[in-house]
């Protein structure tokens, strides 16, 4: 039985631009990544609090005073403005293809959708497309044209090589401000490396959302038969009888995923598994629901 392609993947295959699709996807979301600054300060009511000496007198709710003859201060939720920094894996393993699109396409669409959402609520966005040979950086900005630059950067990437094993380069990709890091990768490069990545991010005081993107055939393995498989990073080939290796393969994969989850889950970091055969909008909804609000 073949699974029907998610509509946005179909649109991507038919040549629709990343920017258009990202906007289409984010149009469906009413709630953003976190509370933004677009509506102005203090717009969202939270609670009433008794007036205390030192409070700004302008914050006293006079209508409440007229009704209760007591001073109350109207409190609104604290508004934030953060930088969303995207790290996108551009190693060879991102060339893995299912239903006609590559893992990198899926990652780019997911990142672009999140970036569009963040940009709309006035957050600064930054982008780093990384492998151990080249790194394409887009500095964090909040400007009007930032999102267009973001799309452009993503559309001209060629995947090759591997994900860098050391994490020293991360020091060049951070700021003193509070940031949300979104990492789009298959995360198959070893749990230890990702653990140190997380530690580095948390040490800077940032929040980390790992988006691990895997294909249906990677998660459930190939259909029964004989298949010639190739490692995208090393180029090694093996011809296997899928039914005879499936059990062991799934066991190995599960073991690794559990190990990875333990390694990268922390107080301010979380790993989210996205399946390439699921619509990007669905994956984003799950991600946003989990994260709720900052």
């Amino acid at each position, binding site marked *: 039985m*073949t699974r029907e392609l998610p509509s946005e993947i179909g649109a991507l295959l038919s040549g629709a631009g990343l920017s258009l699709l990202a906007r289409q996807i984010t149009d469906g979301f009413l709630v953003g990544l976190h509370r933004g600054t677009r509506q102005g300060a203090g717009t969202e009511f939270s609670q009433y609090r008794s007036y205390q000496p030192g409070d700004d007198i302008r914050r006293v709710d006079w209508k409440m005073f007229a009704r209760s003859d007591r001073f109350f201060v109207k409190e609104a939720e604290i508004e934030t403005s953060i930088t969303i920094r995207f790290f996108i894996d551009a190693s060879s*393993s*991102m*060339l*893995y*293809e299912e239903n006609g699109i590559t*893992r990198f396409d899926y990652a780019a669409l997911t990142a672009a959708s999140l970036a569009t959402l963040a940009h709309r609520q006035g957050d600064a966005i930054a982008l780093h497309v990384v492998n151990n040979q080249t790194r394409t950086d887009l500095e964090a900005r909040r400007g009007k044209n930032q999102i267009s630059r973001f799309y452009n950067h993503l559309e001209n990437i060629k995947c090759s090589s591997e994900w860098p094993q050391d994490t020293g380069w991360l020091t060049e990709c951070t700021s003193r401000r509070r940031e949300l890091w979104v990492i789009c990768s*298959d995360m*198959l490069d070893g749990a230890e490396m990702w653990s140190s990545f997380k530690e580095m991010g948390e040490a800077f005081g940032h929040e980390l959302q790992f988006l691990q993107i*895997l*294909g249906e*055939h*990677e998660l459930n393995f*190939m259909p029964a*038969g*004989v*298949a*010639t*498989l*190739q*490692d*995208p990073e*090393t180029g*090694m*080939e*093996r*011809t*296997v*009888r899928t039914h*005879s*290796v499936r059990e*062991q*393969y799934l066991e*190995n*994969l599960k073991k*690794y995923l559990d190990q990875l989850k333990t390694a990268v889950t922390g107080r301010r970091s979380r790993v989210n598994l996205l399946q390439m055969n699921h619509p990007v909008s669905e994956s984003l909804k799950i991600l946003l629901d989990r994260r709720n609000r900052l």
Partner: protein
Amino acid sequence: MIFGAPVWFWLLAAIATPVAVHLWNRKSGKPQLLGTFRFLPERSFAKAGRIELHEVPLLTLRVLIVLLIVLLLAGLFIPRESEKMETIKIIETSGEYSEVLTDTGILELNIPGRRIDEIGWWRIFEQIEYEYRPDVILAEGGTGLNRFSGKRPGLNAMVEWTGETSPADPDMSSTEPVDFRLTVRENLEDNRKQGFRFTADLWDANYLEETLRENLLAVLHKGEEEFELLEIERESDNADYLGAGPVTGVRISVNLFDDSIKVPNAILYSAVNRVPVLWEDPENNQRLWLNSEPETVLSAWFYSAAAQQLFKMAGASVSADFPELTNRQRYPLERTETMVSGMKEKSSAVTWLFILLLICWAAERSIAPKREM
């Protein structure tokens, strides 16, 4: 299973084509990228040198398609499995043919009297034994001598008469043996001679080859009498062929599935049950004029039938009810009805083969694009 044209089996070699395609496809199969490659266990890799067929179900379907096409061309014929009845009762009737299965499990066949006159009891018994393989045949009807032509066939079933009287054994009352001698023109082609010899053997006649005059094919000597078979040059058309059996008294019997006759089926279909016209000389009853040329491949049968007619004429001059063929003489023509029912069975096998072929083809077409093969 019988095959009408087994020569088509050479096409089975075409099975090698899908096998080769699948082997080739495996060799040239494009490797699929798998990001999680490193989680494959080290063991259980397919050995590179081992021949392993790719997409076995698809290959099976394709081989099946080739096989079905070959079976269709080879003319698969599945003989009918007849139903066994323990007891069959034959009742002579003045009405139409009918079958009734009684509560006691006896199958009653009502056969019109004129039909019994035409084909005789022995042939009816033979046919019933062939179709139902009964233990007992109960017969009820007239037992006139004309209904017992030829020798009593070797039946496995026990025949019990419930009619007027039990028949006398025709062998006991047969006419005196007649001394026949068939002389054939020696410069005839071998296949013609073969036909004459066949009929002479059937009639236990002496067979000779001598120089005869040009248009004389054969002479049958019965004692002092001579009966001539002559050849005339005459335009023949379809009207010159008469139906077999009741009209001419002779049938050419050809088993369509007889491997020894190397004839295309189309010729057989057109030739079966057609007998060359033998024109009797109106002034001299002891002459027959042969008025057609057979298909070369059938000429042995053709001249055999002509000679048969000559023997029949000679026999008729001895006594009115002479043309009684012995069981051996009758043997080939008894196969005619079997052959016809066999053809029906064959056509039904063709229908099923064709339906199966369509199903396989549809399945193959739906699977192949998904597997990119």
